[in-house]
């Protein structure tokens, strides 16, 4: 296949070369994705077969192989829903369903719409992400400029990354509910906490990344600490910042979803996962999972785009 593609694009025009490069990059990914989807259909057939056979047995009907396969693809509560079922559910709940509905004269969120649930999860995620990132950057600045803070806080910041912090999420929610806080704030607190440490640790690394030569140069200019910070340390730390932002935003999203789990939240992707698992609505679980994946992918690639644009303007792109 790749040989044919190479020959087809051998004309030499720049556009053809660009297209050929694109195909060479995309084709393997498409093949792998295709294989995954094929495997998925195969697994769905195998895993849903017992239920089909059982139902046919009780009805006293003999099914042909084609009928069995057709039935496994379209069960209402399959063990493993097929991709087209998940996509159909995503379409029905995210696109076809209105996000807002009118109730007692006012517009409120429509709990049947997956976009509404995604918003309920994304809002605390983003709020917590922004707060956690700013706090992490501030802590990193403090650590770099203050030796006492460096020695006291840094070992704990590193050690805290080895602890399954996520397990605390439900408690924070319960405690804050007892104090009277509910809704956006408790969830965003958890996502702030989860995005805080990756940003802090990697910003410390970034702010320390200028080498001795650069620092010496600024000293010969008799630059003050704040001038060194703004003109050398901060620009040097930008690549580190973006790398950690991608980790942090993914962690923040996971944090919000987990925070919604054991506390009986009614709205949000985590709540969709939990109600789906209580009532055996596998298609609902998978569609919520896909929505979460889409959110994560959009957030990470948004940061990636900002990263590329910023580094390009700074002349740092690799």
């Amino acid at each position, binding site marked *: 296949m790749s040989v044919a593609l190479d020959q087809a694009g051998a004309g030499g025009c720049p556009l053809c070369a660009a297209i050929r490069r694109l195909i060479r990059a995309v*084709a393997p990914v498409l093949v792998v994705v295709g294989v995954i989807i094929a495997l998925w259909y195969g697994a769905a057939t195998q*895993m849903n077969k017992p239920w089909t056979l059982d139902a046919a047995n009780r009805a006293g009907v003999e099914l042909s192989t084609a009928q069995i396969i057709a039935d496994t693809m379209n069960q209402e509560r399959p063990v493993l829903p097929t991709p087209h079922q998940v996509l159909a559910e995503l379409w029905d709940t995210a696109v076809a369903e209105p996000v807002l509905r009118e109730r007692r004269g006012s517009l409120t969120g429509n709990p049947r719409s997956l976009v509404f649930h995604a918003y309920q999860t994304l809002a605390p995620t983003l709020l917590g992400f922004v707060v956690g990132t700013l706090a992490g950057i501030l802590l990193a600045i403090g650590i770099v400029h203050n030796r006492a803070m*460096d020695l006291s806080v840094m070992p704990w910041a590193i050690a805290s990354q*080895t602890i399954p912090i996520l397990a605390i999420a439900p408690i924070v929610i319960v405690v804050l509910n*007892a104090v009277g806080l509910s809704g956006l704030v408790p969830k965003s607190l958890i996502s702030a906490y989860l995005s805080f440490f990756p940003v802090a640790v990697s910003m410390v690394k970034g702010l320390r990344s200028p080498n001795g030569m650069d620092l010496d140069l600024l000293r010969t200019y008799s630059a003050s600490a704040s001038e060194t910070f703004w003109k050398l340390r901060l620009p040097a730390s930008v690549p580190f910042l973006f790398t950690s932002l991608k980790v942090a935003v993914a962690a923040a999203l996971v944090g919000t979803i987990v925070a919604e789990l054991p506390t009986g939240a009614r709205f949000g992707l985590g709540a969709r996962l939990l109600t789906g698992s209580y009532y055996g609505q596998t298609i609902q679980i998978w569609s919520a999972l896909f929505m979460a994946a889409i959110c994560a992918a959009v957030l990470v690639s948004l940061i990636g785009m900002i990263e590329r644009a910023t580094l390009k303007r700074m002349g740092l792109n690799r």
Partner: protein
Amino acid sequence: MSAGLAQSARRSWVVPAIGAGLIALAALSEPRLAIVLALWIGAWGLNIVLSRGTETAAIRLAVPVIFGLTLLAIWEVTVRLYEISPIILPAPSQIAQAFAANTDILWADFQQTILKGALSGYVMGCGLAFLTALAVDKSNFLQRGLLPVGNFIAALPIVGTAPILVMWFGFGWESKAAVVVAMVFFPMLVNTVSGLKATDAMQRDLMHTYAANYGQSLVKLRLMNALPFIFNGLKICTTLALIGAIVAEFFGSPTVGMGFRIKIEVGRLAMDMVWAEITVAALAGSGFYGLMALIEKRMTFWHPSQRGR
């Protein structure tokens, strides 16, 4: 430099003065706050003085320990002085009591969640990822196809598969191990593959001039060079494994396990027990990570990142 030192010497009385002023101010309006503030400022001052001197191993150990103990002390004092309900936040001493009184339960939970769920899933997931990485490394096509997909999946909230896997594998430790496998697979895969690519052309050419075959150059050169990356993946995965095992138990478990206990005790508002369980999770997490870091140190003693210390 010397100007800076002189300046800091001249200003050295300012900070304690501000601290004392703050404490006095607080003492006038709210004596309880003054005690907490005094504790904090005193310990912080001690740390500042300690970190001014030459950095020895003792100071590097003492300063963070003092900081941690201060936080614990402030927690304890605040809870007691302000009479915070143990339903909201138990004091460290209460948590320690709950820990000591329930060691048998905690040990059973530890066995169920960490040893059975997390560890078996960790070994399976990392092993599987390692073997897949060898296959990916051998095929250029898989590298271009599977790696972008793997990078993409590594950023997804894989914890969300927990309800599905619990449905498939039942409430026992098997479903927790399955969640852990799903969580650790892709980070480990991506790290190992990038590690296997870490040799430079000169080294590979050298192996080529020795007429080394694929297996020899893999074992003697490329795996050795990949070790820092592999251990990085293994260390990231320790935390992921614990998170996966605990969170999966929120969706269904036998009547033992850390996630189960947290969920139940939160419902009964027995927060001291919840915090004791979190202490176990924290100890297990840092112990597991520390073990991996120790093995890394033993196996990659030759690497620049280890020699510097």
